[in-house]
């Protein structure tokens, strides 16, 4: 088959303009496909990155309601819980009201035990734990605002007020972390510092995050935790981090379905376009195919040549498009990181993309292939 490659190649060069245009529309189709997959992963894929051994406990009625801080110690006593810590949403704003930041009050001593995917140089980590007024910030948010280690920043809260009469808290940046789960835009600071200085909500916590020894035991442990507080005035709801993140992503509505729908519309359109052009270029060469058959090329060979040509164009365009999408996914991630953590184009996009290349090329070649296969030499040669 490989010996026919030069023949296929020169066939593509016969009408340069047409090949270029077909190629271009296939590139666009796959570029869009790659970008849509990136977006879908960013909007809904957080769940795949969630730790399988982490559980979250929140107020049963809603995430916005707090739990008593005393719950934390009771959760720590549950069998199977390795480590448990708290998290409190701060409602962070930096400078302008519109620049909202994901800011959390946490326990620095336990933070990395619960979230091993966050990494920080050891001396920065030590400084953060030692300095109550310090904060660690994600890579990309540090870049966005030009923050440096050692800098002092003021974050405002759109929920809490400080005992000093303002809504602002001062923090020293102790470190800049990177996280393998794509969360490069959050900031974390000391719960104790925050708890002592806020005017209301003292000794309340937003949620409890725990790591468990055996992920298979997750449902049982979650049930045990919730049973601790059943029938109290503050009941809880414990779920795996994956379920929590998934549920949160679902709040966006059925985005996944919408994106799939758009992608299918794009593909249907592109399939028509390329099938038509490929069909056209075969029809114009029926004469030539007749000559090839006369020379002794079998129907099967001729058909596979037509198929090969279609696959070659689709594969060429498809892989260029996917490569472009990978490159552009970085730009998209930069733009979208204010809303969601992203990790670029998911690897599955390459696999699904490759499958689509075969399907698209095959479907486009279907009609011309049948024509080439059935073609009678006499008929072909009679046509001028």
């Amino acid at each position, binding site marked *: 088959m490989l010996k026919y490659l030069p023949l296929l190649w020169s066939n593509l060069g016969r009408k340069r303009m047409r090949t270029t245009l077909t190629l271009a529309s296939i590139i666009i189709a796959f570029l869009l496909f790659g970008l849509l997959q990136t977006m879908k992963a960013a909007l809904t894929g957080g769940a795949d990155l969630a730790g399988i051994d982490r559980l979250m406990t929140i107020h049963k009625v809603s995430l916005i309601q707090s739990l008593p801080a005393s719950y934390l110690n009771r959760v720590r006593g549950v069998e199977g819980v390795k480590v448990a810590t708290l998290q409190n949403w701060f409602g962070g704003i930096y400078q302008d009201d519109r620049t*909202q930041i994901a800011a959390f009050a946490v326990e620095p001593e336990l933070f990395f035990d619960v979230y091993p995917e966050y990494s920080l140089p050891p001396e920065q980590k030590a400084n953060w734990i030692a300095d109550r007024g310090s904060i660690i910030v994600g890579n990309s948010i540090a870049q966005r605002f030009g923050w440096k280690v050692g800098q002092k920043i003021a974050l405002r809260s759109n929920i809490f007020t400080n005992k000093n009469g303002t809504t602002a808290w001062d923090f020293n940046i102790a470190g800049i972390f990177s996280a393998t789960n794509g969360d490069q835009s959050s900031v974390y600071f000391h719960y104790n510092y925050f708890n002592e200085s806020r005017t209301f909500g003292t000794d309340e916590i937003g949620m409890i995050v725990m790591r468990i020894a055996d992920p298979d035991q997750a449902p049982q442990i979650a049930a045990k935790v919730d049973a601790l507080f059943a029938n109290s005035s503050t009941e809880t709801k414990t779920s795996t981090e994956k379920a929590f993140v998934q549920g949160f992503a679902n709040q966006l509505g059925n985005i996944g379905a919408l994106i799939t729908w758009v992608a299918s519309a794009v593909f249907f359109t592109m399939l028509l376009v390329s099938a038509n052009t490929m069909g056209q270029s075969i029809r114009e060469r029926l004469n030539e195919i007749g000559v090839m058959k006369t020379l002794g090329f079998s129907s099967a060979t001729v058909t596979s040549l037509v198929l090969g040509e279609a696959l070659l164009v689709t594969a060429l365009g498809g892989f260029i498009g996917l490569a472009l999408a990978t490159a552009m996914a970085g730009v998209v991630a930069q733009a979208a990181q204010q809303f969601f953590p992203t990790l670029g184009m998911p690897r599955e996009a390459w696999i699904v993309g490759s499958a689509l290349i075969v399907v698209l090329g095959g479907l486009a070649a279907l009609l011309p292939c049948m024509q080439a296969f059935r073609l009678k030499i006499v008929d072909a040669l009679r046509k001028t």
Partner: protein
Amino acid sequence: MATNIFNQIGTITAMNLRNMSARLASSIVALVGIAGVVTVLVGVLSIREGFRAVLDESGAPDVAIVLRNGATDELGSGLSLEQTRAIADSTLIARNADGALASAELYVVVDVPMKSTGTAANVPLRGVGPQAPHLRQNFKIVAGRMFRPGTFEVIVGRGASTQFAGLTVGNTLRWGTTDWTVTGIFEDKGSVSESEIWTADSVLQNAYNRGPSYQSLRAKLTSAAAFQPFKDALTSDPRLNVRAFTERQYYQEQSRSLTTLVSTIGAAIAILMGLGAIFAALNTMYSAVSARTREIATLRAMGFGAAPVVTSVLTEGVLLGLAGGAIGALIAYFAFNGVRASTINFASFSQISFAFTVTPALLVQALIYAIALGLIGGLLPSLRAARMPIATGLREL
């Protein structure tokens, strides 16, 4: 001479259009390409229009919203009873027989499962005062009855009732340690309120251990012009530490990031898909021109000028664009217009329900875009047709 050119243009264009049927397959492909682009474009942008319609409907210029200073939304705000009373005393607030048209409100979110995914979503639960219905111009109960103050009864917005499970009249829901009964469904001409659940303020304060505190105060002012003096009076009052917005400003601010996101995604898809459609149109028009090489050359030999040839090819492109655009717009209109959905608005951390809205302006915009695609697709091939040396063209098979 001038009339001659127009005659020529007319003749060639008419001939061109008559024999478009000979190139049916490739014309249909270009048509479908453009129609596809327009459908997707209109579909995505109708989401943005849907948000906008909800927020426009919600934002009266003569209704003020007062929040605690520093708060950017009701969820993060807090006002004491004394503060709300002091604000409601303002002479700039309109009055009816029951007193000032002001409503101090609480705003919390409760988990209610979405019908589409079955997972919990943040649905706003609002505790309102007796004047609240008068602050929403088009408020009306469309099923059941109003809640009775002092009981665990709620009324549900029409949007919330269609998007979330169990929000039907007569149904009982359990949030925390309390059972709530739905007694009615209300409408407010599609405003944000329709995404909410309402109960009496005092009931919600008790259920949430809030004591006599509120989160926002809504007031109908005597006129839109009264807002500035009202705001100045509040911000200069030493007893208060609050900020005021008109309802319109407030909802514009709330929806900004969501509408920006949808517009950006819509624009990106439109541009990329548009490029794809241009390639399809170019392909079609190039093959149309190349199939008619001899015909065009013959025409030129007979004395037809280059301009009529260019115009005829361009017209074909524009017509393809127009037809594709019209088909796409129709599909989008019937497939999307009025479809209800809901999503989370990060600014208020709660669900907002909306309807995909295909506006006439959107349709016009899409048609113009489609015509532009057809025009660009026709331009290069038309130039090639015009530039071709006559002798070469005649010789071509």
